[in-house]
Protein backbone atom coordinates (compact mmCIF):
# COMPACT_ATOMS: atom_id res chain seq x y z
CA UNK A 1 0.00 0.00 0.00
CA UNK A 2 2.72 2.45 0.99
CA UNK A 3 4.64 1.40 -2.10
CA UNK A 4 1.68 2.32 -4.27
CA UNK A 5 1.30 5.64 -2.43
CA UNK A 6 5.00 6.36 -2.79
CA UNK A 7 4.82 5.55 -6.48
CA UNK A 8 1.80 7.81 -6.90
CA UNK A 9 3.57 10.55 -5.01
CA UNK A 10 6.63 10.16 -7.20
CA UNK A 11 4.47 10.19 -10.31
CA UNK A 12 2.39 13.22 -9.43
CA UNK A 13 4.56 15.33 -7.16
CA UNK A 14 8.26 14.59 -7.02
CA UNK A 15 9.97 14.16 -9.40
CA UNK A 16 6.79 13.70 -11.36
CA UNK A 17 4.35 16.02 -13.03
CA UNK A 18 4.10 18.78 -10.43
CA UNK A 19 7.84 19.15 -9.93
CA UNK A 20 8.51 18.95 -13.64
CA UNK A 21 5.80 21.48 -14.47
CA UNK A 22 6.89 23.90 -11.75
CA UNK A 23 10.50 23.47 -12.80
CA UNK A 24 9.59 23.93 -16.46
CA UNK A 25 7.67 27.14 -15.85
CA UNK A 26 10.47 28.43 -13.65
CA UNK A 27 13.00 27.56 -16.34
CA UNK A 28 10.93 29.43 -18.92
CA UNK A 29 10.79 32.44 -16.65
CA UNK A 30 14.57 32.39 -16.08
CA UNK A 31 15.18 32.07 -19.79
CA UNK A 32 12.81 34.82 -20.78
CA UNK A 33 13.99 37.17 -18.05
CA UNK A 34 17.65 36.69 -18.87
CA UNK A 35 16.94 37.06 -22.58
CA UNK A 36 15.07 40.28 -21.90
CA UNK A 37 17.70 41.74 -19.60
CA UNK A 38 20.46 40.96 -22.04
CA UNK A 39 18.43 42.88 -24.60
CA UNK A 40 18.13 45.75 -22.14
CA UNK A 41 14.42 45.11 -21.65
CA UNK A 42 12.45 44.59 -18.45
CA UNK A 43 11.21 41.07 -19.15
CA UNK A 44 8.20 39.26 -17.75
CA UNK A 45 7.22 39.02 -14.06
CA UNK A 46 7.83 35.64 -12.37
CA UNK A 47 4.29 34.38 -12.84
CA UNK A 48 4.12 35.16 -16.55
CA UNK A 49 4.72 31.57 -17.80
CA UNK A 50 2.05 30.31 -15.39
CA UNK A 51 -0.33 33.06 -16.43
CA UNK A 52 0.26 32.23 -20.10
CA UNK A 53 -0.38 28.56 -19.35
CA UNK A 54 -3.62 29.24 -17.49
CA UNK A 55 -4.79 31.64 -20.16
CA UNK A 56 -4.14 29.14 -22.92
CA UNK A 57 -6.07 26.48 -20.97
CA UNK A 58 -9.13 28.70 -21.00
CA UNK A 59 -8.92 29.48 -24.72
CA UNK A 60 -10.98 27.97 -27.46
CA UNK A 61 -9.35 25.09 -29.22
CA UNK A 62 -9.56 24.86 -32.97
CA UNK A 63 -8.65 21.75 -34.94
CA UNK A 64 -8.20 22.11 -38.69
CA UNK A 65 -10.93 20.33 -40.64
CA UNK A 66 -8.52 18.13 -42.55
CA UNK A 67 -6.31 17.27 -39.59
CA UNK A 68 -5.91 13.76 -38.24
CA UNK A 69 -7.83 14.47 -35.07
CA UNK A 70 -6.44 11.61 -32.99
CA UNK A 71 -2.79 12.31 -33.74
CA UNK A 72 -3.37 16.04 -33.49
CA UNK A 73 -4.84 15.67 -30.01
CA UNK A 74 -2.56 12.96 -28.69
CA UNK A 75 0.79 14.53 -29.54
CA UNK A 76 0.88 17.29 -26.91
CA UNK A 77 0.11 14.74 -24.19
CA UNK A 78 2.75 12.36 -25.49
CA UNK A 79 5.34 15.14 -25.57
CA UNK A 80 4.59 16.19 -22.01
CA UNK A 81 4.50 12.61 -20.72
CA UNK A 82 7.79 11.66 -22.35
CA UNK A 83 9.62 14.71 -21.10
CA UNK A 84 8.33 14.20 -17.56
CA UNK A 85 9.14 10.49 -17.50
CA UNK A 86 12.75 11.20 -18.38
CA UNK A 87 13.15 13.01 -15.09
CA UNK A 88 12.77 9.76 -13.14
CA UNK A 89 16.09 8.38 -14.33
CA UNK A 90 18.18 11.51 -13.76
CA UNK A 91 20.05 11.90 -10.47
CA UNK A 92 18.91 15.23 -9.07
CA UNK A 93 19.73 15.75 -5.39
CA UNK A 94 21.99 12.75 -4.94
CA UNK A 95 23.93 10.27 -7.01
CA UNK A 96 20.98 7.89 -7.18
CA UNK A 97 17.92 8.61 -9.28
CA UNK A 98 14.43 7.41 -8.32
CA UNK A 99 14.52 4.82 -11.06
CA UNK A 100 17.84 3.40 -12.14
CA UNK A 101 18.91 0.45 -14.20
CA UNK A 102 21.73 -0.37 -16.54
CA UNK A 103 21.00 1.42 -19.82
CA UNK A 104 18.76 4.14 -18.41
CA UNK A 105 20.99 6.78 -20.06
CA UNK A 106 19.75 5.58 -23.43
CA UNK A 107 16.16 5.49 -22.21
CA UNK A 108 16.43 9.13 -21.11
CA UNK A 109 17.83 10.12 -24.47
CA UNK A 110 15.05 8.23 -26.18
CA UNK A 111 12.43 9.90 -23.99
CA UNK A 112 13.94 13.28 -24.79
CA UNK A 113 13.70 12.54 -28.51
CA UNK A 114 10.00 11.69 -28.24
CA UNK A 115 8.87 15.33 -27.86
CA UNK A 116 10.65 16.25 -31.10
CA UNK A 117 8.96 13.32 -32.83
CA UNK A 118 5.63 14.40 -31.41
CA UNK A 119 6.19 17.94 -32.71
CA UNK A 120 6.84 16.42 -36.09
CA UNK A 121 3.74 14.21 -36.00
CA UNK A 122 1.55 16.95 -34.55
CA UNK A 123 2.68 19.40 -37.21
CA UNK A 124 2.31 16.83 -39.95
CA UNK A 125 -1.17 15.85 -38.77
CA UNK A 126 -2.36 19.43 -38.83
CA UNK A 127 -1.88 19.54 -42.65
CA UNK A 128 -1.17 23.26 -42.80
CA UNK A 129 1.67 24.14 -45.18
CA UNK A 130 3.50 26.09 -42.50
CA UNK A 131 3.21 23.20 -40.05
CA UNK A 132 4.27 20.66 -42.67
CA UNK A 133 7.40 22.61 -43.49
CA UNK A 134 8.08 23.09 -39.80
CA UNK A 135 7.71 19.34 -39.27
CA UNK A 136 10.11 18.51 -42.05
CA UNK A 137 12.58 20.93 -40.61
CA UNK A 138 12.32 19.64 -37.05
CA UNK A 139 12.92 16.09 -38.26
CA UNK A 140 15.85 17.09 -40.45
CA UNK A 141 17.29 19.01 -37.54
CA UNK A 142 16.89 16.00 -35.27
CA UNK A 143 19.40 14.00 -37.28
CA UNK A 144 21.90 16.83 -37.11
CA UNK A 145 22.11 17.41 -33.36
CA UNK A 146 21.05 14.03 -32.00
CA UNK A 147 24.17 12.16 -33.06
CA UNK A 148 26.69 14.54 -31.45
CA UNK A 149 24.52 14.69 -28.34
CA UNK A 150 24.37 10.92 -28.10
CA UNK A 151 28.12 10.63 -28.60
CA UNK A 152 29.06 13.09 -25.89
CA UNK A 153 26.65 11.50 -23.44
CA UNK A 154 28.24 8.13 -24.17
CA UNK A 155 31.68 9.46 -23.34
CA UNK A 156 31.26 9.69 -19.54
CA UNK A 157 29.54 6.31 -19.70
CA UNK A 158 32.58 4.80 -21.35
CA UNK A 159 34.78 6.26 -18.67
CA UNK A 160 32.53 5.14 -15.87
CA UNK A 161 31.87 1.75 -17.45
CA UNK A 162 28.19 2.15 -16.85
CA UNK A 163 25.17 2.88 -19.07
CA UNK A 164 23.21 4.16 -16.14
CA UNK A 165 23.11 7.87 -15.23
CA UNK A 166 23.15 6.95 -11.56
CA UNK A 167 26.09 4.65 -12.23
CA UNK A 168 27.99 7.47 -13.89
CA UNK A 169 27.18 9.85 -11.05
CA UNK A 170 28.41 7.32 -8.48
CA UNK A 171 31.60 6.75 -10.47
CA UNK A 172 32.40 10.45 -10.64
CA UNK A 173 31.80 10.86 -6.92
CA UNK A 174 34.79 8.57 -6.51
CA UNK A 175 36.83 10.13 -9.34
CA UNK A 176 35.90 13.82 -9.22
CA UNK A 177 38.88 14.99 -11.25
CA UNK A 178 38.11 12.64 -14.12
CA UNK A 179 34.85 14.51 -14.68
CA UNK A 180 36.94 17.44 -15.91
CA UNK A 181 37.79 15.43 -19.02
CA UNK A 182 34.15 15.73 -20.07
CA UNK A 183 34.13 19.51 -20.37
CA UNK A 184 34.53 19.57 -24.19
CA UNK A 185 31.52 17.28 -24.21
CA UNK A 186 29.59 19.78 -22.12
CA UNK A 187 30.18 22.48 -24.72
CA UNK A 188 28.99 20.17 -27.49
CA UNK A 189 25.96 19.15 -25.45
CA UNK A 190 25.01 22.79 -24.76
CA UNK A 191 25.01 23.60 -28.47
CA UNK A 192 23.13 20.42 -29.34
CA UNK A 193 20.61 21.29 -26.65
CA UNK A 194 19.76 24.52 -28.46
CA UNK A 195 18.70 22.29 -31.34
CA UNK A 196 16.73 19.97 -29.12
CA UNK A 197 14.90 22.83 -27.46
CA UNK A 198 14.45 24.54 -30.83
CA UNK A 199 15.92 27.81 -29.75
CA UNK A 200 17.81 30.38 -31.83
CA UNK A 201 20.09 29.69 -33.73
CA UNK A 202 18.40 26.33 -34.31
CA UNK A 203 14.74 27.34 -34.09
CA UNK A 204 14.10 26.60 -37.74
CA UNK A 205 11.09 24.44 -37.00
CA UNK A 206 9.16 27.37 -35.59
CA UNK A 207 10.98 30.22 -37.33
CA UNK A 208 8.41 32.93 -36.78
CA UNK A 209 9.24 35.22 -39.66
CA UNK A 210 9.44 32.39 -42.17
CA UNK A 211 6.74 29.87 -41.32
CA UNK A 212 4.62 31.69 -38.71
CA UNK A 213 4.77 29.23 -35.80
CA UNK A 214 6.00 26.20 -37.73
CA UNK A 215 4.86 22.94 -36.23
CA UNK A 216 2.64 24.72 -33.72
CA UNK A 217 0.87 26.95 -36.25
CA UNK A 218 -2.49 25.18 -36.04
CA UNK A 219 -2.40 24.49 -32.32
CA UNK A 220 -4.43 26.60 -29.95
CA UNK A 221 -5.87 26.53 -26.46
CA UNK A 222 -5.17 23.55 -24.23
CA UNK A 223 -3.10 21.54 -26.72
CA UNK A 224 -0.81 24.46 -27.34
CA UNK A 225 -0.47 24.95 -23.58
CA UNK A 226 0.61 21.31 -23.21
CA UNK A 227 3.06 21.58 -26.07
CA UNK A 228 4.61 24.67 -24.58
CA UNK A 229 4.75 23.06 -21.15
CA UNK A 230 6.40 20.03 -22.73
CA UNK A 231 9.11 22.26 -24.21
CA UNK A 232 9.64 23.89 -20.82
CA UNK A 233 9.84 20.53 -19.06
CA UNK A 234 12.21 19.30 -21.72
CA UNK A 235 14.42 22.29 -20.99
CA UNK A 236 14.57 21.58 -17.29
CA UNK A 237 15.08 17.83 -17.84
CA UNK A 238 17.86 18.44 -20.35
CA UNK A 239 19.52 20.96 -18.06
CA UNK A 240 19.32 18.46 -15.17
CA UNK A 241 20.76 15.77 -17.41
CA UNK A 242 23.72 17.94 -18.36
CA UNK A 243 24.20 18.94 -14.72
CA UNK A 244 24.30 15.33 -13.52
CA UNK A 245 26.44 13.96 -16.36
CA UNK A 246 28.93 16.75 -16.97
CA UNK A 247 28.89 18.56 -13.63
CA UNK A 248 28.62 15.61 -11.24
CA UNK A 249 30.47 17.18 -8.36
CA UNK A 250 29.09 17.30 -4.83
CA UNK A 251 26.21 14.90 -5.32
CA UNK A 252 27.06 12.87 -2.22
CA UNK A 253 26.88 15.90 0.10
CA UNK A 254 23.95 16.20 2.51
CA UNK A 255 20.61 17.17 1.00
CA UNK A 256 20.82 20.74 2.34
CA UNK A 257 23.86 21.24 0.13
CA UNK A 258 22.87 19.24 -2.94
CA UNK A 259 19.58 21.07 -3.48
CA UNK A 260 21.16 24.55 -3.87
CA UNK A 261 24.04 22.97 -5.76
CA UNK A 262 21.56 21.37 -8.18
CA UNK A 263 19.76 24.66 -8.65
CA UNK A 264 23.05 26.43 -9.28
CA UNK A 265 24.12 23.93 -11.92
CA UNK A 266 20.75 24.01 -13.71
CA UNK A 267 20.69 27.80 -13.64
CA UNK A 268 24.20 27.90 -15.05
CA UNK A 269 23.14 25.67 -17.95
CA UNK A 270 20.02 27.80 -18.54
CA UNK A 271 22.13 30.95 -18.44
CA UNK A 272 24.46 29.71 -21.15
CA UNK A 273 21.48 28.65 -23.29
CA UNK A 274 19.87 32.07 -22.85
CA UNK A 275 23.10 33.84 -23.71
CA UNK A 276 23.62 31.79 -26.85
CA UNK A 277 20.13 32.40 -28.11
CA UNK A 278 20.48 36.11 -27.43
CA UNK A 279 23.62 36.72 -29.44
CA UNK A 280 23.20 34.45 -32.44
CA UNK A 281 21.15 34.69 -35.61
CA UNK A 282 18.99 31.85 -36.84
CA UNK A 283 20.83 29.58 -39.25
CA UNK A 284 19.35 28.14 -42.40
CA UNK A 285 18.67 24.43 -42.55
CA UNK A 286 21.68 23.57 -44.68
CA UNK A 287 23.90 25.82 -42.61
CA UNK A 288 22.77 24.08 -39.48
CA UNK A 289 23.40 20.64 -40.96
CA UNK A 290 26.80 21.74 -42.11
CA UNK A 291 27.68 23.16 -38.71
CA UNK A 292 26.52 20.08 -36.85
CA UNK A 293 28.31 17.59 -39.08
CA UNK A 294 31.41 19.64 -39.73
CA UNK A 295 32.11 20.97 -36.26
CA UNK A 296 29.82 19.49 -33.65
CA UNK A 297 30.15 15.84 -34.62
CA UNK A 298 33.98 15.92 -34.88
CA UNK A 299 34.12 17.68 -31.51
CA UNK A 300 31.95 14.92 -30.09
CA UNK A 301 34.27 12.34 -31.65
CA UNK A 302 37.18 14.04 -29.98
CA UNK A 303 35.45 13.81 -26.63
CA UNK A 304 34.77 10.15 -27.27
CA UNK A 305 38.43 9.61 -28.10
CA UNK A 306 39.57 11.34 -24.91
CA UNK A 307 37.24 9.18 -22.86
CA UNK A 308 38.32 5.96 -24.60
CA UNK A 309 41.98 6.75 -24.03
CA UNK A 310 41.37 7.67 -20.41
CA UNK A 311 39.29 4.57 -19.84
CA UNK A 312 42.08 2.50 -21.38
CA UNK A 313 44.61 4.14 -19.08
CA UNK A 314 42.43 3.50 -16.03
CA UNK A 315 41.91 -0.16 -16.73
CA UNK A 316 45.66 -0.66 -17.07
Amino acid at each position, binding site marked *: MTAVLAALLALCVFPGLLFAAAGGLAAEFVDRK*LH*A*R*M*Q*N*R*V*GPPWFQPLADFVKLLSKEELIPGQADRFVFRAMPILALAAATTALFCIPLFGPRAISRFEGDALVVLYLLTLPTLSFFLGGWASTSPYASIGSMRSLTQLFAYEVPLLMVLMAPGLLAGSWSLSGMALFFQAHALLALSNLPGLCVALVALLGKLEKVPFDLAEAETEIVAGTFTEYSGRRLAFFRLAVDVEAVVAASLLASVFLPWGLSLPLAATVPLYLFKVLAVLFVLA*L*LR*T*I*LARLRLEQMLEFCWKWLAPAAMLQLLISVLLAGGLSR
Partner: protein
Amino acid sequence: MKWPGKMAAEALRQLLRRPATVPYPSVPAQMPERFRGRIVFDAATCVGCGLCERDCPSGALTINEVGKKRYEAVFQLDRCLFCALCVDLCNKRSLAATREFELAAVRRGDLRVLYPAPAAAKESDGAA
Protein backbone atom coordinates in the same frame (compact mmCIF):
# COMPACT_ATOMS: atom_id res chain seq x y z
CA MET B 1 37.92 37.77 -38.39
CA LYS B 2 34.40 36.46 -38.39
CA TRP B 3 33.31 34.51 -35.37
CA PRO B 4 29.97 33.70 -33.82
CA GLY B 5 28.97 35.45 -30.63
CA LYS B 6 30.50 38.88 -31.21
CA MET B 7 27.61 40.43 -29.34
CA ALA B 8 28.28 38.43 -26.16
CA ALA B 9 30.15 41.21 -24.36
CA GLU B 10 27.48 43.74 -25.18
CA ALA B 11 24.71 41.35 -24.09
CA LEU B 12 26.43 40.59 -20.77
CA ARG B 13 27.02 44.29 -20.14
CA GLN B 14 23.29 44.87 -20.42
CA LEU B 15 22.71 42.52 -17.47
CA LEU B 16 24.30 45.12 -15.20
CA ARG B 17 22.40 48.03 -16.72
CA ARG B 18 18.93 49.17 -15.94
CA PRO B 19 16.42 48.26 -18.63
CA ALA B 20 15.94 50.98 -21.20
CA THR B 21 12.18 50.44 -21.12
CA VAL B 22 10.11 53.36 -19.91
CA PRO B 23 7.46 51.80 -17.68
CA TYR B 24 4.62 53.74 -19.24
CA PRO B 25 1.82 54.13 -18.10
CA SER B 26 2.96 53.71 -14.49
CA VAL B 27 5.49 56.44 -15.21
CA PRO B 28 3.76 59.18 -17.19
CA ALA B 29 5.30 60.13 -20.52
CA GLN B 30 6.36 63.75 -20.91
CA MET B 31 6.00 65.22 -24.35
CA PRO B 32 8.33 68.01 -25.51
CA GLU B 33 7.16 71.58 -25.40
CA ARG B 34 6.40 71.79 -29.12
CA PHE B 35 4.28 68.67 -29.06
CA ARG B 36 1.09 68.87 -31.08
CA GLY B 37 -1.48 67.20 -28.90
CA ARG B 38 -5.13 67.99 -28.28
CA ILE B 39 -6.12 71.44 -29.46
CA VAL B 40 -7.77 73.79 -26.97
CA PHE B 41 -10.00 76.69 -27.89
CA ASP B 42 -10.39 80.01 -26.18
CA ALA B 43 -13.87 81.18 -27.05
CA ALA B 44 -13.33 84.63 -25.53
CA THR B 45 -10.89 85.76 -28.23
CA CYS B 46 -12.38 84.05 -31.28
CA VAL B 47 -13.70 86.41 -33.93
CA GLY B 48 -15.18 83.70 -36.12
CA CYS B 49 -13.03 84.37 -39.20
CA GLY B 50 -13.23 80.69 -40.11
CA LEU B 51 -9.65 80.41 -41.44
CA CYS B 52 -9.03 77.35 -39.28
CA GLU B 53 -12.19 75.63 -40.42
CA ARG B 54 -11.52 76.30 -44.07
CA ASP B 55 -8.04 74.82 -44.15
CA CYS B 56 -8.36 71.97 -41.67
CA PRO B 57 -7.05 69.03 -43.74
CA SER B 58 -9.56 66.57 -42.34
CA GLY B 59 -12.53 68.75 -41.53
CA ALA B 60 -12.19 67.97 -37.83
CA LEU B 61 -13.05 71.45 -36.65
CA THR B 62 -16.19 73.56 -36.94
CA ILE B 63 -16.77 77.04 -35.55
CA ASN B 64 -20.44 77.91 -35.03
CA GLU B 65 -21.85 81.31 -34.32
CA VAL B 66 -24.26 80.82 -31.43
CA GLY B 67 -25.11 84.44 -30.70
CA LYS B 68 -23.94 87.90 -31.55
CA LYS B 69 -20.17 87.59 -31.95
CA ARG B 70 -20.17 84.51 -29.77
CA TYR B 71 -18.59 81.40 -31.20
CA GLU B 72 -18.35 77.82 -30.09
CA ALA B 73 -15.91 75.23 -31.45
CA VAL B 74 -16.57 71.57 -32.07
CA PHE B 75 -13.64 69.21 -32.48
CA GLN B 76 -13.96 65.70 -33.87
CA LEU B 77 -10.91 64.13 -32.26
CA ASP B 78 -11.41 60.95 -34.29
CA ARG B 79 -10.88 62.98 -37.45
CA CYS B 80 -8.20 65.35 -36.18
CA LEU B 81 -4.73 64.53 -37.43
CA PHE B 82 -2.97 66.80 -34.96
CA CYS B 83 -1.12 68.85 -37.52
CA ALA B 84 -1.97 72.00 -35.53
CA LEU B 85 -2.35 73.91 -38.77
CA CYS B 86 -5.39 75.63 -37.24
CA VAL B 87 -3.18 76.93 -34.43
CA ASP B 88 -0.79 78.48 -36.95
CA LEU B 89 -3.62 79.98 -38.98
CA CYS B 90 -5.42 81.64 -36.09
CA ASN B 91 -4.65 85.36 -36.05
CA LYS B 92 -6.22 85.84 -32.60
CA ARG B 93 -4.36 82.99 -30.91
CA SER B 94 -7.64 81.46 -29.87
CA LEU B 95 -6.36 77.98 -30.58
CA ALA B 96 -3.43 76.26 -28.91
CA ALA B 97 -1.87 72.83 -29.06
CA THR B 98 -1.41 71.09 -25.73
CA ARG B 99 0.93 68.27 -24.75
CA GLU B 100 -2.02 66.03 -24.01
CA PHE B 101 -1.95 62.86 -26.08
CA GLU B 102 -3.87 60.22 -24.12
CA LEU B 103 -7.10 60.65 -26.01
CA ALA B 104 -8.39 57.10 -26.38
CA ALA B 105 -12.09 56.70 -25.77
CA VAL B 106 -14.45 53.74 -25.61
CA ARG B 107 -17.24 55.43 -27.48
CA ARG B 108 -17.05 57.47 -30.62
CA GLY B 109 -19.27 60.11 -29.06
CA ASP B 110 -16.61 60.82 -26.44
CA LEU B 111 -14.30 61.98 -29.19
CA ARG B 112 -16.53 64.92 -30.04
CA VAL B 113 -15.36 67.85 -27.96
CA LEU B 114 -17.44 70.99 -27.63
CA TYR B 115 -15.94 74.26 -26.46
CA PRO B 116 -18.98 76.37 -25.65
CA ALA B 117 -19.25 80.05 -26.46
CA PRO B 118 -18.22 82.46 -23.66
CA ALA B 119 -21.55 83.65 -22.34
CA ALA B 120 -22.91 80.12 -22.35
CA ALA B 121 -22.12 79.94 -18.64
CA LYS B 122 -18.96 78.06 -17.61
CA GLU B 123 -15.32 78.31 -18.63
CA SER B 124 -14.45 76.40 -21.72
CA ASP B 125 -13.87 72.90 -20.55
CA GLY B 126 -12.84 69.76 -22.28
CA ALA B 127 -14.40 66.43 -23.02
CA ALA B 128 -18.08 66.03 -22.32
